[in-house]
Every structure is written in structure tokens, then in C-alpha cells.
């Protein structure tokens, strides 16, 4: 007898009895689940997969409950969503860790700093610049003047001094610009929309970067003969900002497809109406000095600057946005890039006909202040050397050896699973709050890295038992097991063995199965082979960097060397 039922109003007929989650999958309906994984037994622990049968009014875990004739399963009704949110909030109340490292969280443009540092340390420069450019416009310029809130938030400062993130970023950005072919970030599919950006200072250039990446055709209007605006003024210490840096960043933008119209001042050469008519959106980034122009054109400007809706970055005129010093004078460069990033998002949403929400932050779990002794756990994963301070630091920045040394100081506070952790993804989906059911005390951070091919952080474990199942299934001689019971239950290696003894065969599989960052791969944390952690710089590559930097040439040979030595 076939079984007929409905899932989210879709009818399905099944020849064989099966679980609700599998039946739903046949209809293309994905029911969230953390402890359940196809290929393993259901364990019914996380309770994320609850669904409701409208007929009986009962809620049940879809991973374990079987389909029955006549059921009308709802997978997304309010009641179910609320139950899932509560489940997540309970889990979050017992979760120890940061999704993102404090440096990234404090970074105004949200650069994934620890990843970049790992890549620098591993001499994977191509990856490192990709990481930087993922979030950051004009890094080579910015990192010469950034006030670096990231460094203030660096957890390492609780031990000695924060990691010199700004110089590490500048090192990799400079290396990139000195190459024959700098790295070009990916650009979204052409949206067919045209954007006019007025002004080519830090804000205007950044706007063109972010909007181009979003798939729009950008034209930058500059009243002077060359782009750069205030960057070329005495406002910026020109000894720190040689022409090759500005030109290099402009070249990247040009290669990405940004069009620059120099000697084209607003009002004189091109009117606002004309810009509006010729583009889907206009962004005014003409700086403090552009204010008079706007006033002359009849745009209302107050003493402080051009008035915009702070939520949408739009001026009083439909489709005209503004950002940077024209809105608020005296912005530090980091702020300019930040507002450019935010404004670009709003502009993009506007031209795509979406509601203007700006950048929507995703769920970010925070560990907060460290408890006694925890800093030692963090430091144990990093090189115990003082901050690297080279002689010609401000003028030339780090060389390769210094960058690698300094990179070794990073404690990698970010979660290795920050991009694929189901707890984070669902918490974001369901709007779960970390402190809804805050506990009396936070469990202690723990971090087990015994070169087992997997790193174990018990504070991130949701007790789903998948690791236990994997090690059982694959016949590990010790393997993982549940230790204790109740609230204090943990997953651990049987008979108190070490992590490598517990994971002789299946480290990769447990990492793959773990729905959170509790068990994660430590591959990306391992130093390149042949160079023990904390070892001194290698002279040959140092020479290479200096040579490359000195001649303003491509870093090609450095790249070759780095790759060669990595072997």
C-alpha cells in the first residue's frame, strides 16, 4: 500500500515507508538538521528538524519520525520556526567560541584577517591577496593610513602586543601591486546597470571597486586631470604614499572595468540631471570641497555636510546617493572605505530594485572577555616571539621574512568552520540570539591540537554524536565516545586516549561530519612543511623581497621562490 501525505501542501506518494526528512527531500524541501546526516543513523539529539503534523497537531523530529498515511506536514510554520529558534538559542547559550576573530569583527570593512595571515605565513600570496580584496578596496593605500581597530581588538594584546595586522595587509597588497599582473577579484555577472560616481578620492575609488564587483558598469567623474582626489593632497603624507601605490590601485580598478572621466567637474562639465538621465544611479563622493558645487546647483547642504538618509545613504533626490567627506567632513580613510562599502550595497540594492537594507550582518557568536588561563590556550597555538618591528617600517613595510615571522604570532581566534557551521547558518536564518538564555557561567574555552589531522574544541560541540558514529562505523581502535551525561556530557576519545590515538583513520571524515567547528581541520593552520614553527627567517627569500620591492617590479620571482621553498 503506497503512503500518501502532504508536505508543505505538496502531495507525495511513497511506496516504502521512510522518514519525513527523506520524503521531504524527494520533494526538494530541505528540513534543517544538525545531528542527522544521510548515511548515518538518526540520533534525534539536536531537535532542529522538528516539523508539525497539521492533522494530529503533534510536533515531531523529521529525522526519526516515519511518514504515515494522511499526514499534513508543515516544515516552516510559525510554531515550528519558533521551536527551532529556541533550540538554537539553547545551543548558543552553551557555545564557546567566536565565529569571527575579534580583529575581523572590529575591522570596519570586515576583512577576514586570520585567513590572510595564515596564507601569508604559508606563502600562499595569491590566496592572501584574494582574501584581502574580497572585502577591501584600495588596500595598498588604506593600509598606509588605517587606524587599525583590528590591532586594538587582537586577543594577543592580552599576552604581549597585538599582531601587526596593518603591516601584514600592506605587505601583501604592495606585493600584489608590484606584480606585472595584479590580482583581480571576481566580478558578479553584468547587471546591465550603469552607475555614475562623482569624485575619485578614497571614497569614490572604493565605491567604484565595490559597485563593479556587484556587476554594475561604473564611471568615475573627476574634475582634476587625474584620479585620486584628496589622496594626492597634503592631507596624506606623500612620503608614505608614492605614486606607484595610487597608480597601482587605479590600474587594478581599470583592469576590473572602471571607467575614469578626468577633467569632468560636476556642474561645469556635466550636470546632475544629465548624470541621472544617463545612469541608473548616481553617487556623490566629491569630498568636502565638492560642497560648494552642490550648493551652487541648488542641492541643500548644511554646515556639517550633505544630508542623506542614514539607512539608505540616499539624498533627498531619488537615485542620488552620497558618501564620504561630502556627507561628514574629516573622515579618516578607513571610514571613507567603510561608508563606500555600505553605500555601494545600498546603491546596488536600489538599482536592482530590491529593498534598501544596506549590508546585513550575519550571525556572529562572541566569546567575550577571556577567563583566567584561556589566553594561554590561545597563545599555545602561536609563536612566542615579540612583535616584529623592522627598521624602515613606515616607509617600506615588512619584507617577506618579517611578514612570516609576524604572521606566526597570530593565534587564529576565528572559527575554522565559520563559513560552513550549521549552527551559525541556522542561527542566522532563524534570527537566534546568543544571550536569550544566557547561562550563569560560560564554559572554559578548550582547544586540543595534537597533530591528529583534526583540532577539537569541545566548547563548540553540540553533542550530535556524529563523530561517535563515524569512528564506530570505520572501526577506529579507540575513537570518539560520549563521556558523562546530562549537561556535562562531552564527546571525547575513549579510555582517555589522545586525539591522534582516537583518530587514527578518520580525522578527515569526522571533520566533514561535524556540523559545527568542534572538530575541524588543522591543515590550514599547519606551517608549510620543512619549516618548523618559530624557526628564523630564510635569507634567500628575504633578498628576494627586497629586490622586488626595490625595483618596483613584479613579485613573480618571489612567488616562485616561495612556492619552491614550500616544498
Amino acid at each position, binding site marked *: 500500500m503506497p503512503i500518501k501525505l502532504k508536505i508543505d501542501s505538496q502531495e507525495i506518494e511513497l511506496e516504502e515507508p521512510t522518514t519525513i526528512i527523506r520524503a521531504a527531500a524527494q520533494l526538494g524541501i530541505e528540513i534543517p538538521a544538525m545531528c542527522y546526516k544521510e548515511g548515518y543513523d538518526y540520533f534525534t*539529539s539536536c531537535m532542529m528538524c522538528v516539523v508539525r503534523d497539521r492533522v494530529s497537531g503533534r*510536533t515531531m523530529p523529521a529525522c526519526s519520525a516515519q511518514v504515515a498515511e494522511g499526514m499534513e506536514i508543515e516544515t516552516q510554520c510559525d510554531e515550528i520556526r519558533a521551536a527551532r529558534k529556541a*533550540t538554537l538559542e539553547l545551543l548558543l547559550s552553551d557555545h564557546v567560541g567566536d565565529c569571527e576573530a575579534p580583529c575581523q569583527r572590529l575591522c570596519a570593512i570586515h576583512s577576514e584577517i586570520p585567513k590572510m595571515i595564515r596564507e601569508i605565513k604559508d606563502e600562499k600570496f595569491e590566496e592572501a591577496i584574494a582574501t584581502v580584496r574580497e572585502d577591501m578596496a584600495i588596500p595598498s593605500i588604506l593600509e598606509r593610513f588605517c587606524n587599525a581597530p583590528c590591532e586594538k581588538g587582537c586577543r594577543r594584546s592580552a599576552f604581549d602586543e597585538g599582531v601587526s595586522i596593518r603591516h601584514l595587509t600592506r605587505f601583501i597588497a604592495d606585493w600584489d601591486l608590484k606584480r606585472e599582473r595584479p590580482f583581480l577579484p571576481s566580478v558578479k555577472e553584468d547587471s546591465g546597470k550603469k552607475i555614475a560616481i562623482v569624485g575619485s578620492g578614497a571614497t569614490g575609488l572604493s565605491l567604484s571597486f565595490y559597485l563593479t564587483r556587484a556587476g554594475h558598469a561604473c564611471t568615475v567623474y573627476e574634475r582634476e586631470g587625474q584620479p585620486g582626489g584628496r589622496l594626492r593632497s597634503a592631507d596624506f603624507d606623500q612620503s608614505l604614499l608614492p605614486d606607484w601605490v595610487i597608480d597601482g590601485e587605479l590600474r587594478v580598478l581599470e583592469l576590473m572595468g572602471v571607467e575614469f572621466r578626468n577633467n569632468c567637474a560636476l556642474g561645469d562639465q556635466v550636470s546632475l540631471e544629465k548624470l541621472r538621465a544617463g545612469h541608473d544611479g548616481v553617487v556623490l563622493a566629491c569630498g568636502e570641497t565638492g560642497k560648494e558645487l552642490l550648493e551652487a546647483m541648488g542641492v541643500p547642504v548644511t554646515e556639517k555636510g550633505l544630508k542623506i538618509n542614514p539607512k539608505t545613504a540616499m539624498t533627498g533626490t531619488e537615485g542620488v546617493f552620497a558618501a564620504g567627506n561630502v556627507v561628514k567632513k574629516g573622515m579618516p580613510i578607513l571610514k571613507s572605505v567603510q561608508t563606500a562599502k555600505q553605500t555601494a550595497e545600498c546603491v546596488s540594492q536600489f538599482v536592482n530594485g530590491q529593498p534598501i537594507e544596506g549590508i546585513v550582518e550575519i550571525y556572529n557568536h562572541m566569546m567575550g572577555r577571556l577567563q583566567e588561563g584561556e589566553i594561554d590556550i590561545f597563545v599555545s597555538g602561536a609563536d612566542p616571539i615579540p612583535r616584529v618591528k623592522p627598521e624602515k617600517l613606515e616607509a617600506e613595510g615588512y619584507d617577506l621574512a618579517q611578514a612570516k615571522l609576524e604572521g606566526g604570532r597570530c593565534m587564529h581566534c576565528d572559527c575554522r568552520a565559520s563559513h560552513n557551521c550549521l549552527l551559525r547558518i541556522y542561527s542566522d536564518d532563524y534570527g537566534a540570539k546568543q544571550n536569550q*538564555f544566557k547561562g550563569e557561567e560560560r564554559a572554559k574555552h578548550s582547544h586540543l591540537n595534537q597533530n591528529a589531522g583534526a583540532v577539537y574544541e569541545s566548547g563548540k560541540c553540540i553533542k550530535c554524536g556524529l563523530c561517535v558514529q563515524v569512528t564506530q562505523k570505520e572501526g577506529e581502535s579507540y575513537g570518539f565516545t560520549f563521556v558523562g551525561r*546530562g*549537561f556535562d556530557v562531552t564527546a571525547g576519545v575513549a*579510555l582517555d*586516549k589522545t586525539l591522534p590515538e582516537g583518530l587514527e583513520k578518520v580525522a578527515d571524515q569526522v571533520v566533514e561530519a561535524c556540523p559545527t567547528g568542534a572538530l575541524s581541520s588543522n591543515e590550514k593552520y599547519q606551517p608549510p612543511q620543512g619549516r618548523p614553527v618559530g624557526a628564523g627567517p630564510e635569507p634567500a627569500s628575504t633578498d628576494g623581497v627586497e629586490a622586488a620591492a626595490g625595483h618596483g617590479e613584479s613579485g613573480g620571482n618571489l612567488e616562485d621562490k616561495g612556492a619552491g621553498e614550500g616544498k
Partner: protein
Amino acid sequence: MSEEPLEDPKTCPGTCGTKTPQVDLSAVDAMVARIGREPVHLIPLLQEMQKQWNHLPATALERLAETTEITPDAITGVSTFYSQFRHQPVGKHIIKTCVGTACHVSGASILDETFRSHLGIGEEEITSDDNQFTVEEVACLGCCMLAPVVQVDDVIYGDVEAFNIPNLLTDFLASEAARAGESGEREEPRKDAVGEARICVCSSCVAGGAFQVFEELRKIVREMDLPVRVKKVGCKGASFETPLVEISIYQRGRHRYGLVKPTDVRALLLKHFRPASWLRRTGATVFHLLEKLLTDEDWDPPTRFSKDVRQKIDEHFENPQTRYVTEHSGILDPRSIDDYLAHDGFVAMKQCLEGGDPEHIIQDMLDSGLRGRGGAGFPTGMKWRFTRAEKNEVKYVICNGDEGDPGAFMDRMILESFPFRVIEGMIVAAYVIGAERGFLYIRAEYPLATERILNAIAQCEERGYLGENILGTGVSLKLEVVEGAGAFVCGEETALMSAIEGGRGMPRFRPPFPAQSGLWGHPTLINNVETFASVSWIIRNGPENFAAVGTEKSKGTKTFALAGKVVRGGMIEVPMGMTIREIVEEIGGGIPEGRKLKAVLMGGPSGGCVPEHLADTPVDYEEISKVGAIMGSGGMVVLDETDCMVDIARYFMRFLQDESCGKCTPCRIGTRRMGEILERLCSGRSKKGDLDRLETLAAITKEGSLCGLGVTAPNPVLSCLKYFREEFEAHINGQCPARKCVSLIRYDIDDECIGCTRCAQYCPTDAIPMNPYHHHVIQDPLCTRCDICLQVCPVDAIHIVDLEKE
């Protein structure tokens, strides 16, 4: 101990420190050879190891992994799941403080603390420096009427008071040698006996000193050559007057004496029996005269210590009860199959096995209206029918004796006093469903119940009532006892089955129900002890007679463990439909010391409270649920006005938090967060919105948990909140109206103080400076609220007052 030489200490691979005795691994091998090497043997093996070393040495566990089919992950998983198992060495003796509900409301919480301070055991430690004593808490010893109860090794002490703890330990050590010499031999019954001296030595009665009285009875009978048969019998349930000796003179009636002490025994026996020989008779008279001369006291048991059967007090306890499950209580010798046979034993079984139609028996069960006595109340006949209907070669029957409610002891008493009746019920059920193998899962804390059941099984097998081809009927049943290892959640049937299989007691999602797929995937019938014990009565007397008693939907009788603040507590069996007030007032004799009834806790950690104004609620599954409690397995703890409902809610939540298996998110974290809020309330640290948060968490845990433990975990909180919300609100304002929560009160000495210094002498923290003939003063920062000073003050000058807010 094995004969083989000990392993060389130098080569010991484990964590053997200097303090840890060397582990003889050949003992592990011997255990494996004796018990087995399959996963199902894991828990018995661990129990045996712990018996040997008092803990589970790491090297022994490794040896187990090396030499058996049991995997390391199972060994670690299981040995850390059950609370019975210890992984650290312990002292020579183990002090277990019972923290069951009845003990809790009788002040058990200060006992552990007092033991610790007396033995100098710090908060983080469990063992005294001299390695003599280890302290631990135990969920419930099932001796609720003698609360608070403490067990030191095998000796149970009842009515323990904090100030008496030094004496208790002295007594324990002094009597250690005597206990070692105890003889276990069974005496042949005298042929010339003209009567019997019956005494119950169940766990409760032993805690009340019954064993010493039993020994004294035997000694005096032997010494004086009295024509008396000294007989251990099943419990009457009247724990309030234990130790209870019943003198039965054949054909001439019975006399019962409560609260008997060993020193009373000689006179008590001589009152009813005369020594058989003239010489002894003279001796007895001389002794009597001598004692009179020496003590200047005429001995008169009825007025001095005992309550005669004719006294009204006992009638009140007994008369409102209806005894089906506990039929012949106080008469049956639980250790004798002959005695059981002489009292209608196995009549029902024979009737069924000799051609009784299983369908007919199921119909009888349905007609009787018998519902599961474990608490959920599912019709027993239906469960039997479902399991019978499954087509499978192999089926199992399980008796759930994992009585986990920390305030209940019905199942313990039934198993200890009526083991044959439980077995009879199981045989009938097995016959009906077609099972040939069965298990009795019995709590770790009930060694006597296990012993009695094992003895009963052995006798049944010997006489053909169990085993192959029972009494030639062609029906076979093999019964095995599985001892629990300490986990409340194993009362849940899927967890229980996992435990029998040798795994962690973690419930799984149902369906499939055990009737479809249970033990090792086979159809399994699981009934509670009391359910099985009801079967024989129903079959012998007819389902209609069972159904004639009770209410519309709840038929027959129900046993309860009546404890807490009642004059007469114990195990009772009442007809369904009797009101809670009747039970408390008529059977229980009301609240002691003229205090008022506040509420009755029913159903333990899964239940709730029935407040005084709803005490006329009848004992009926549906009616009790309506008021927010549950019938439960039968724990009934009576509270008076000195009990704090917030403290009660916290107590249960703490219990559940310890007992949650930790599998599903809502229960694992929900109970913890609720517990934290309740701790805050009790300690005056509550935050804004805590009551709302508590209710939200309760709803989430109730709705979202996987098994019954989690689903019902919020019940005590919700029910206390429903009826006593103002008490919760008072705690938010830093006041405990019942003056129970130690962080919200302080002790004060008033002008009645005569300066006797008793309080100062007894204070374990020296918080009261000694000042003879002067008004004593408590130095509050040093006071731990142990209550000892109040207990020892001869003039009632010490009071509890609200702690003034800063």
C-alpha cells in the same frame, strides 16, 4: 582474590600512583571468564570491578577492552554514564547521603555538608585525608519514612540529625567488627513451635534497626529455648513504627509491637512464651528478677516502646487500605516459595498455563481496567495485545523495577516482600505474548530487592515454576535479573532496554514502540513491578471484582509511598478514588506537631504538587492530571507550611539536571537553565524577567524534548508556580516565606538564652563564641545555617529570621 602474583608495579602501564593500590589484572580476566565477554556483559563486569576495587581503575578498563568483544568507546561511554561508577579511588568506607525528596524536606541538604566538615573533606574533594571515608550523595535509598537517611557501606541509618553525625560514625566504626562476624545461616524451624515472632527486615525496617532486633530474637529464642519460630516476613508498609515485631500464637491471635529495640526483645518474648524446659524457665524468672533489681524498672513493653495491635493508631493506618498487590503482607515469608504456595501462590499462573486462552487473559486484563502502574496509565491489556500481535520468533518480557522517583519505594517493597507475586505476573504475561525470556531491571540502590528476586527465581526454577516446560505445561520462561547502575532516565522504556543491552541509557524516538521493536529489535513487553504484581489477584478473583473498586477510568488499587510530613508514613495500598486528604489525614494521621498541610507532591520529578485546597482530589489518573500533578508511580511526599515551594522546584530541577541523559538539546540545556534561575531565586540573586524566562524555558523543554523525562521535567516548576506564585515573587524580593532558603535567612538567639553553651559546643564552624551564663550570639558571617544550634538548644531560644537586605 586471585592466587596469581600481582603485576610488577614498575611495569604497570596505568595511572597507578603511590596512593592507588596495585590492580591485579588477573582478577579482570577471572571476571570476564565468569560473567562473559559480550557487550551485554559490560555493566555487570563494571559492577563486579567496582565491587573489587571500589572504583574502576584505568588499567582494569584497558584490560577489559583488550580481552573482550567490548569496544573502548562502549567502556568509556557506559562507565561514565551511570552514576554508580567511580573512576577515582575512594576511601575505605563510603557514606551515601540520601537526597531523595522526603530526605530533602527533612533537612538532608545539611548532612553532606556536616559530614564534610566533620571529616575535613573540602568542597572539591570526596575522600577524607586518612582515606577512611568517602562522601557521596545518592538519589534515593527508598527509605523515605525514616528520612533523612544515610548509608555507610551496607549500614543504613534513619532519622539522622546533623548534630548526631559524630556519634553515627563512632557507632559505625564500633560495630564494624560485630558485623564482620554475622552469620548468614538459616535456622531450621522448630518443630515444637507454638507461635511465630515475625519481623520485617526490608530496607526501611533495617534502616530502623530491624536487623539488630532480628538477631536478638534469634539469640534469645536459642538462649532461653523458647518454642518460637523467628520468621522474616514481607513488609506491612508501616514504616513509621519500624522495627515492627509481630507475635503470632498459633490459633490464639496476634500482637504487634512497633519501635522495638534489641533491649526490649527478651521481655517481649517472655510476655508471650514460656521456655520449653524447667531450667530455662527458672533462669528466665531469675533474669527477670535480676534485671528488675539492677535496673529498678519493671519491664512493660506495650507502654514503654511499643504499640499494641489493639491500639487505634495502627487500625487507622491499616483499615482504609485495600490489599491486592500487597495481599498477605506481614504474613508471607518473601524467601519461601512454600509460604507463597500456601497463600494462593501460583494459582493464577496454573490456571492460565493449563489451557487458559491468551486472548481470554488479555480480555480479563482489559475488563479489570488495570492500567500501567509506572505512571503513564496505559491499559495493560492493550500493551499485551499489541505485543502478542507481533509476529516474531523471539519476544521478551521486562519488569521495570527502576523506581527512580526520589521519594518512592513501592516497587522496592513489592520486590522485597512479594517477589514470587511479581514473577507470577511475569510468567502469565510471557505466556500471553509468547516470550520465553524475561528480565527484571532493578535499581542499583535496591540490593535486597535483587537478592530476594534472585532467591525467588532460584526456588522457582528448582520447583519447576520457571525454566523449561513449566509444571509440564509446555510453557517455558527464563528470567534474569539486570541490576541498574544509577540512572533515573532508565525508567524510560527505550533507555531501559538500551541499559539491558549494555549501552548508555539514552532514550530513542518512539515509534517504533517496544511492542514492535524492543530489546535487540524484538517485540518486548515492559510493565512496571506493581502492574505485574496485580495480575495474580485479578485472575484469581476475577476482573469484575478488581474493576468494582475505583473510579470510572481508574480501577482497582494503587500503592503509594507516603512520606514527608505525616505522622504515619510507609507504603500503603488504597482503592482508587480515595481522596488525597483521606490518605494524608486518615492513613497518615495528619501532619506532625500540629502544623498545617501545604501541598502533596505526587509523581516526583515528573509530577507536580497538589495544594491543600485541592486535597479532595481523588486518586484517579485523569483527576490528578487535571490539577497539574500526575499519578506517577506512587511517590507521595507531604509538605507542611515550613516547606518552601521554590526550594522544592529547585530540588526537582537539580535532580533532573543530574539525571538528564544529555541527548536532546531542550532537556540537556533547558533543565540546566531553569535550574540556574531557580538557584538564583533561592539565593536572592534573581534577575529581572526571571519568572518569565522560567516559564518560557519550561514551555520549550516540555514541547521539544525527546523522551518523557524532558517532556515532564518542567512539571514540578510549572505546578509550584501555578499554585504558589507569590512565593516565587517573594524570593525575587529576597524573602523566603517558609524560611527555608539559607541565603535569605539567618539564625538568631533571643533573650530566652540561658547561657548553657550547648549551641557553642555543637556549632561545627565555631560561629557561636562560648560565653557561659551569658546571652550567646551567632556571628553571622561564619554561620552556615546547618540548623544544629536550633536542634540542640534546650530552651528554644534560637530562631530563623529574614536576612535583612543591605
